[in-house]
């Protein structure tokens, strides 16, 4: 099927490289887009996280500020360290609330509430707030222990809802209450953020499908916009390194960004499913592939057409050249404007020209050689003819027929003179008739005059030149072959002008030529009776050599009626004398 043609090869190479280029390009582009999508989501995600972290920091600062105020509250210190009567307590409660009023007006105060637990075991919760945790729960928190170990630091932890009704998980901060002036330690302060409140801080950053989670350092999910995740263990979401604040991690199906919150000792994690990230990308990809395929198809078509156009002239060239292969060389048509093909064509045509020239020269040479051969032939008098004629003269001498002897010798001398001494190849018609007459004379003397020859030459024809001894072989032929049976008859020679042609007709009323008749005539070219080496076949050949293939000898014969030989040659100016 696959022919190693130029077209196939070029198409193959171009299409293959096209495919490779396109596929490489497509892969690269699609990878680039993929990366770009991930990058853009990473940027978005990190700015979201930064926003949330900012809010959480603000909350943290407010919590610390609030705790600071609690440390400065002298009534609170009294309340948490001493024992009082109800009346004293009534005043203390009022004073504490007054001293802490600022904290209740603070902008973020509605996010959390604060509980203090005194060294005397007393609990204080500012008015307007309801307490959702028990003292035992607070006391057993690990941050209570931690903050007692380093009392100036704020610690965060998470307290589960523990399946209490109407309760949610809580993020709790704790530090120790130490009077900054007296350094007196008077209790522990806890700031409590409900998980639902906490969630509201980042809920506005939830777009379609990302999840924001708050994870403690052991992988425990403390808070999430997705409530089903809360409480679950998600160690895999923890970042690989704890040193950096912002980290990206790529899990199997989600892009994960985490932010370490040093104050809270927790990680804020934003996860975006790759499905979501690549939702737009998938659209783009299919578009890319569609366009890519269209381009490939289009380019393939283009390549096909262009290659076809390029190779078409070559194919035509091949076809034209193939047509020339049977020995006939014709020039190529100019079909193409391409430089190379044009060159090939012109070189080929030049070659054909030269070949034609060469062949023409060769033909000409051959013709000339043949003509020379024939000319030589016509100048050679058959020795048998001479012998026979001389024998006839001898016989005449014997008879003392002087008149006949004179006639014969005159005729022979004229014949010899015209054939041997006259070097001209062409002679006027009158000369040829004269020769014919001499020849007929000799024949009549030799064989008797049972066969008569008449000449009908149009008067304006006699001066035209014709090849020497053109008519003689036909008259000779009629003499020796046409009257085998009849023994007597007539031979008529007509010469006339037909337009631009000269018409020679040699008619006899002899036996005619049977089917094998002429062959017997032609198979005796060296017949002893022949005057020269030229037979009728040679005449025809000679005419064609001289005048061209459209001229020559035609012969019609009817058995027992006669034979008609017609010779047609053109009249040309040079043929006049």
């Amino acid at each position, binding site marked *: 099927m696959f022919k190693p043609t130029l077209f196939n090869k070029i198409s193959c190479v171009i299409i293959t490289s096209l495919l490779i280029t396109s596929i490489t390009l497509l892969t690269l582009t699609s990878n680039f887009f993929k990366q770009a999508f991930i990058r853009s989501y990473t940027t978005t995600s990190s700015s979201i996280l930064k926003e949330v972290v900012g809010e959480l920091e603000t909350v943290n600062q407010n919590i610390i500020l609030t705790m600071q105020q609690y440390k400065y509250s002298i009534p609170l210190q009294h309340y948490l360290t001493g024992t009082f009567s*109800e009346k004293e307590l*009534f005043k203390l*409660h*009022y004073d504490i609330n007054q001293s802490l009023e600022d904290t209740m007006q603070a902008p973020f105060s509605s996010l959390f509430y604060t509980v203090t637990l005194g060294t005397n075991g007393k609990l204080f919760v500012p*008015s307007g707030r309801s307490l*959702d945790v028990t003292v035992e729960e607070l006391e057993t928190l690990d941050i209570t222990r931690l903050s007692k170990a380093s009392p100036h630091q704020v610690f965060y932890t998470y307290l589960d809802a523990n399946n209490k009704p109407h309760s949610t998980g809580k993020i709790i901060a704790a530090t120790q209450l130490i009077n900054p002036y007296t350094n007196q330690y008077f209790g522990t302060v806890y700031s409590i953020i409900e998980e639902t409140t906490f969630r509201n801080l980042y809920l506005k950053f939830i777009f379609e499908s990302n999840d924001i989670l708050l994870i403690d350092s052991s992988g425990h999910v403390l808070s999430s916009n997705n409530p089903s995740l809360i409480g679950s263990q998600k160690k895999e979401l923890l970042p690989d390194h704890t040193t950096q604040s912002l980290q990206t991690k790529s899990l199997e199906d989600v892009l994960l960004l985490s932010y370490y919150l040093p104050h809270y000792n927790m990680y804020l994690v934003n996860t975006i499913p790759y499905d979501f990230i690549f939702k737009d990308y998938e659209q783009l990809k299919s578009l890319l592939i569609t366009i890519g395929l269209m381009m490939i198809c289009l380019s393939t078509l*283009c390549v096909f057409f262009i290659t076809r156009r390029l190779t078409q002239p070559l194919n035509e060239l091949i076809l034209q050249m193939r047509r020339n292969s049977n020995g006939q060389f014709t020039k190529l048509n100019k079909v193409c404007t391409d430089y190379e093909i044009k060159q090939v064509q012109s070189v080929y045509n030049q070659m054909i020209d030269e070949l034609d020239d060469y062949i023409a020269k060769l033909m000409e040479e051959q013709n000339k050689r043949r003509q020379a051969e024939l000319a030589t032939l016509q100048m050679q008098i058959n020795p048998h003819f001479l012998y026979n004629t001389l024998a006839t003269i001898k016989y005449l001498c014997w008879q003392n027929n002087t008149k006949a002897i004179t006639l014969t010798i005159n005729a022979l001398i004229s014949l010899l003179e015209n054939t041997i001494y006259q070097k001209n190849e062409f002679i006027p018609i009158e000369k040829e008739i004269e020769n014919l007459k001499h020849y007929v004379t000799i024949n009549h003397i030799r064989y008797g005059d049972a066969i008569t020859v008449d000449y009908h030459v149009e008067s304006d024809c006699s001066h035209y030149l014709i090849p020497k001894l053109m008519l003689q072989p036909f008259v000779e032929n009629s003499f020796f072959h046409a009257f085998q049976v009849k023994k007597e008859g007539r031979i008529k020679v007509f010469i006339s002008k037909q337009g631009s042609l000269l018409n020679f007709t040699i008619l006899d009323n002899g036996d005619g030529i049977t089917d094998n008749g002429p062959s017997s005539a032609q198979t005796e070219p060296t017949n002893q009776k022949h005057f020269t080496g030229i037979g009728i076949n040679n005449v025809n050949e000679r005419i064609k050599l001289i005048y061209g293939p459209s001229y020559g000898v035609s012969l019609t014969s009817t058995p027992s009626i006669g034979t008609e030989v017609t010779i047609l040659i053109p009249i040309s100016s040079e043929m006049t004398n």
Partner: protein
Amino acid sequence: MNFKKLSSLLLSGLLVFSLAGCGSGSSDSSNSDTEGKEKIVAWAWDKNFNIAALEEAKAIYEKENPDVEIEIVEFAQSDIIQKLNTGLSSGSTDGLPNIVLIEDYRSQTFLKSYPDSFKDLSDITTSDKFAPYKLDFMTLEGKTYGIPFDTGTTGLFYRSDLIQEAGYTDEDMQDLTWEKFIEIGKAVKEKTGVDMLTLDPNDIGQVRMMMQSAGTWYVKEDGQTPNFTDNEALKESVLMYQKLVEANISKTVSEWSQFVAAPNSGEVATVPTGCWFMPSIMGEESQSGLWKIAPLPRLGTVETSVNASNLGGSSWYVLDNVEGSDVAKDFMGKTFGSNSDFYQTILDKNGVIGTYLPAQEGEVYTKESEFFGGQKVFADLSEWSSEIPSVNYGLHTYAFEDILKAEVQNLLQGADIDTCLTNAQTQAESQIR
């Protein structure tokens, strides 16, 4: 070459097409709003009470209007006040709810501070449907802007067992004076070691109840003029409060959960408060049968004082300029504004006593409460509610109370009552000027 031109044209055409494709591909993901569902938001406080009633109403309304989604958000009352003030004063309705619960003490303040912010609900709230004393709070220039919700009718919740242990009977508890209340309290403290009541120095609701039982308030009839001096009932109320503190029969608390925890854990024998406290009392099921409700004590020294008063109570308001206000109004009208069965349900299920008059003929009102030892509490409360002296709370209830709280502390430190009240009057006058 022509062919080249043609192909380059085609290629550029393709490129343009592909770019256009990109553009359209990214733009069609934007408008994916949840269409059809109209969302309205309601803010309230107290999960067991207000929120529970809202949930019930939501269930009823959403069943009939499946294309409406009602979101109920619980906030502390102070947060609601703060957020409302912030939102309304900024003029931006962004982030504000459609429906909000406002305590009656504050309603006039909001209506006057933010005119045109609340929807006129006069066609829903008609005087034949709601107690008139309640309607006054939400009426401004003849238009009614709210739907009355719970009643603040006061009662004296008391532990029948502890009272009897101290040598008193249920009859002794009826129509008490505060003087008698202190006397019984001392006996209870002596006999059982249990305090008589809780007091919160930052919330002197007791003064308010006493005051209203005598038909007077921090402000005069006009709702503006401070009414501390020459207000005998207020003076007697403050003095009585001082007696309560000094009688050593009270437990000091500082916040709601402690206030609730005290009766629930058996630390106090009585709670004189609004009837909305009933669900909290009933929260401690182990005390079922021990509690009873008596009318609130009256001021024995003030003649006009009756054994009935009001504490708290709140009403629903619809914000006019928030998207979905018509739906919100429809929701309120079809539930809180007209649905008798709904009130019966929340009364039965949650102990929420509404102020919708037609509902009071329902059988739940005459039901005997097992928790309260077979007492027909709802019938009793609605009877007392008809005796509540009407007062105009005006605009400055809490602002003036803050002034009074400080003066009460001074009083307890030994200051003279008249000096204290004069101080309060001066401060109040300077504050509203």
